[in-house]
């Protein structure tokens, strides 16, 4: 089974990297760029086929390591 975990900064948390990327995109003349927030994507291969178990394991993974819930949100998508 494959899963994708997406970690993003919570609203209101200052993201200087996103700001810098936003500035670079605008200076490239790319039309219509409003704002940019940078996040992280983890593609994870999982053993077994129990989707509920996988979801629960990934939730633990996010809470314990992948996201710092002081400043970040996470989203879990399991393929198939």
């Amino acid at each position, binding site marked *: 089974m494959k899963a994708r975990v997406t970690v993003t900064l919570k609203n209101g948390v*200052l993201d*200087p990297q996103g700001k810098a990327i936003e500035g670079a995109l605008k200076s490239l003349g790319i039309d219509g760029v409003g704002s940019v927030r940078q996040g992280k994507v983890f593609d994870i291969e999982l053993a077994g086929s129990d989707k509920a178990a996988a979801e629960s394991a990934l939730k633990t993974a996010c809470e314990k390591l*992948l996201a710092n819930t002081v400043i970040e949100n996470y989203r879990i998508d399991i393929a198939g």
Partner: protein
Amino acid sequence: MKSAVIVFPGSNREQDVIRALRVGAGHEPVKVWHADTELPAGTDLVVLPGGFSYGDYLRCGAIAGRAAIMDAVRAHAARGGLVLGICNGFQILVESGLLPGILMRNRDLRFICRMQHLKVERTDTAFTRAYAPGQVIEVAIAHGEGNYEADEETIRRLEDEGRVIFRYCDAEGRVGGKANPNGSTHDIAGICSEGRNVLGMMPHPENLVEDLVGGVDGLGLFRSLRAA
């Protein structure tokens, strides 16, 4: 007092802090590997040194904060044992839940490596009692992620409980504005735990303990740890 310095893959200031503990505190520190599960018997002080543990992968201090030895460090702190985290060590302390908040990317996105003045806000900790209250010291800073952030409630608690131990300031002790190198909330450079036994700080007092290398303003921290 017995001290232990934890070494993670990517730590690089452990020798500096060991020397500072010898010179300033008269300790003979023991190095402890991150994969160990126990601290040496009778350890009074645990030091998490600076560096780039795990190459700063994921988030600074995130992987080190979950290392095997950290359960023992948490238990030591819960017993009231002293824990000092410097720079990456401070990042590890917030990631391991021993201190609140987080160290974000510096306001100007640059790695800053230079001398910096600090105000010693509190001397009622085991780490700062050899300083005078309000004393201005000059030590080194070297970090890319030193911008301390926490929710409003946490900041209010830290301030109300007198847990902001060091603040960035200028040579005259003025806090705020350009004296803040990294955008840190309330100019925070170092905070302690509720029990005042865990201290995390971004600056490097361990690099200013001998005149030969430019000053001795960091010595007060290690002298504070001498007798305890």
